[in-house]
C-alpha cells in the first residue's frame, strides 16, 4: 500500500510536469505561428502597396517597380501573382499592361504555355484561363488549339479565355466553335465573340453559309448583336436559303429574322411579313419574324405591318400591336 502511494505521487508529479511542458509547447507553437502570420501580413501589405503603386508610377519608376515585383521570391511572389490575377480583369490601360508585364517577367506566360500541353485536363484548363488574362498575340494559337481539346471543360475555358484576351484574329476560330459538334455552349462562344474588337465581317458571312446549323445560328445571332450591317445581305440570303437545306433549322431562321430586325434591313421586310403569316412556319419563327417587322422603321414597314395584322395569328398580332 505504501509503495502504491509513492507510485501515485510520482505519477502525479510526472503528469503535472507533462501538462506544463505540453502547455508551454502549445504557447510556443501558437506564438511562433502568430509571429509568422504577423510577419507575413506585414510583408504582404508591403508587397500590396507596391502593387497599388503600379497605378501611379511612370516611366523609370514603373520599370523599377515591375522589376521589383517580378523578382519577389517564394510565397510573397505567389501573393504578387494571385493579387495581380484578381485585379487584371478589373482594369485596363497602362496599369493593366504594367500588371501583365510583371506576370510575364515572373515567367507566368512561359509556364502557362507549357501547362496548356499538360496531360492533366485541370492543368490545361487552368493554363487556358491564365493565358486569356495575360492576353497578347502569342496566346491566340495555343488557345485556339485548346478549342479542339479532347476535354470539354478545357474547350469551354479556352473559348471564354479567347473572349477575355479579346484579339480580333480569334474570330474565325470562335465562329468554328459554334459548331454543333464542338460541345461548347453557343452562349459561351457567342459571348466571347461579342468581346472581340475590330471584327472581320467575312468571318460571319462564311459562317452564315456554313453546312453546320450551329455555326449558321451563332453567326446570325452575333451579327445582329454586333449590328454588323456588312453581313446583312448574307443574313437575308441565309434566311431565304435555310428552307432548302438538308439540315434546315427553325432556330437559324428565327435568329436570322431577329438580327435582320435589329439591323433594320429593309429589303427583308416583305419576306419577314410572309414568314410571320405563314402557316407552314413554326410559332417561334413566326414570332421572330413579327419581332423583326416591329423593329423595321419607315412608312412602308408600317403599311406592311398593317397588312400582317389582318392575316397573322394572335401571338404575332400581340407583338405588332405596340409598333
Amino acid at each position, binding site marked *: 500500500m505504501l509503495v502504491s502511494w509513492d507510485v501515485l505521487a510520482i505519477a502525479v508529479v510526472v503528469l503535472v510536469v507533462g501538462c506544463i511542458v505540453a502547455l508551454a509547447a502549445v504557447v510556443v507553437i501558437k506564438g511562433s505561428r502568430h509571429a509568422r502570420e504577423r510577419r507575413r501580413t506585414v510583408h504582404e501589405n508591403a508587397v*500590396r*502597396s507596391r502593387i*497599388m*503603386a503600379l*497605378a*501611379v508610377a511612370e516611366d523609370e519608376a514603373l520599370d523599377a517597380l515591375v522589376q521589383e515585383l517580378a523578382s519577389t521570391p517564394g510565397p510573397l511572389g505567389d501573393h504578387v501573382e494571385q*493579387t495581380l490575377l*484578381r*485585379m487584371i*480583369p*478589373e*482594369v*485596363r*490601360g*497602362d*496599369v*493593366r499592361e504594367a500588371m501583365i508585364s510583371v506576370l510575364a517577367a515572373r515567367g507566368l506566360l512561359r509556364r502557362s504555355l507549357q501547362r496548356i500541353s499538360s496531360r492533366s485536363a485541370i492543368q490545361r484548363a487552368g493554363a487556358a484561363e491564365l493565358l486569356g488574362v495575360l492576353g497578347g498575340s502569342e496566346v491566340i494559337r495555343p488557345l485556339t488549339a485548346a478549342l479542339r481539346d479532347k476535354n470539354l471543360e478545357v474547350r469551354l475555358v479556352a473559348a471564354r479565355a479567347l473572349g477575355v484576351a479579346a484579339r480580333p484574329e480569334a474570330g474565325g476560330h470562335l465562329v468554328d466553335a459554334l459548331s454543333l459538334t464542338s460541345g461548347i455552349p453557343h452562349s459561351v462562344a457567342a459571348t466571347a465573340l461579342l468581346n472581340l474588337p475590330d471584327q472581320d465581317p467575312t468571318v460571319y458571312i462564311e459562317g452564315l453559309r456554313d453546312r453546320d446549323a450551329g455555326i449558321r445560328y451563332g453567326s446570325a445571332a452575333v451579327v445582329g448583336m454586333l449590328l454588323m450591317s456588312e453581313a446583312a445581305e448574307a443574313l437575308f440570303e441565309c434566311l431565304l436559303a435555310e428552307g432548302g437545306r438538308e439540315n434546315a433549322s427553325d432556330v437559324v431562321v428565327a435568329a436570322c429574322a431577329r438580327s435582320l430586325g435589329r439591323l433594320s434591313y429593309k429589303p427583308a421586310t416583305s419576306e419577314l411579313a410572309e414568314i410571320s403569316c405563314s402557316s407552314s412556319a413554326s410559332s417561334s419563327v413566326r414570332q421572330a419574324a413579327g419581332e423583326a417587322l416591329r423593329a423595321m422603321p419607315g412608312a412602308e414597314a408600317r403599311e406592311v405591318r398593317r397588312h400582317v395584322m389582318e392575316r397573322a395569328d394572335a401571338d404575332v398580332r400581340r407583338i405588332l400591336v405596340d409598333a
Partner: protein
Amino acid sequence: MPHKILVVDDDADIRDLVSTKLESSGYEVETAGDGVAGLELATNNGYSLVISDVMMPGMSGVDMVRMMRAAEPPVSVPVILLTAKNQERDIESGFAAGITDYVVKPFSPRELAARVAGILAR
C-alpha cells in the same frame, strides 16, 4: 485644402487601387466596404465626391445614391458609379437616382482620375 473623396467598394483590391491613384493626384481619400457604411460616411462627412461600385452586399451603389438624395437634408455630392460592362440598366437606374457620371469596368485609373478632376473643376 485638398478635396475629400469617398470610395465605396466591397472589393479591397479596387478600393486600394482607386485610393492610391486619387491620393497620388493630391486628394484626401476615405473608403467604405459596402453601401451601408458608405451611406453613413457620405451623410455625416463633407465629401467633395463619392465613387461607388454598383454590386455590393447589403446595399447596392444605386440604392446608396438614392438614399443619399432622399436624406434630410439631401446629400447632393457628385457621385461616379463604377459599373460592370453590359449593365445598362444599372447606369439607367443610377442616373434616375442622381449619379453624376459612370465608369465601366474594366476601367482605367488614369481615366477615372481625369473624370474626377473634371467634375471637381465644375
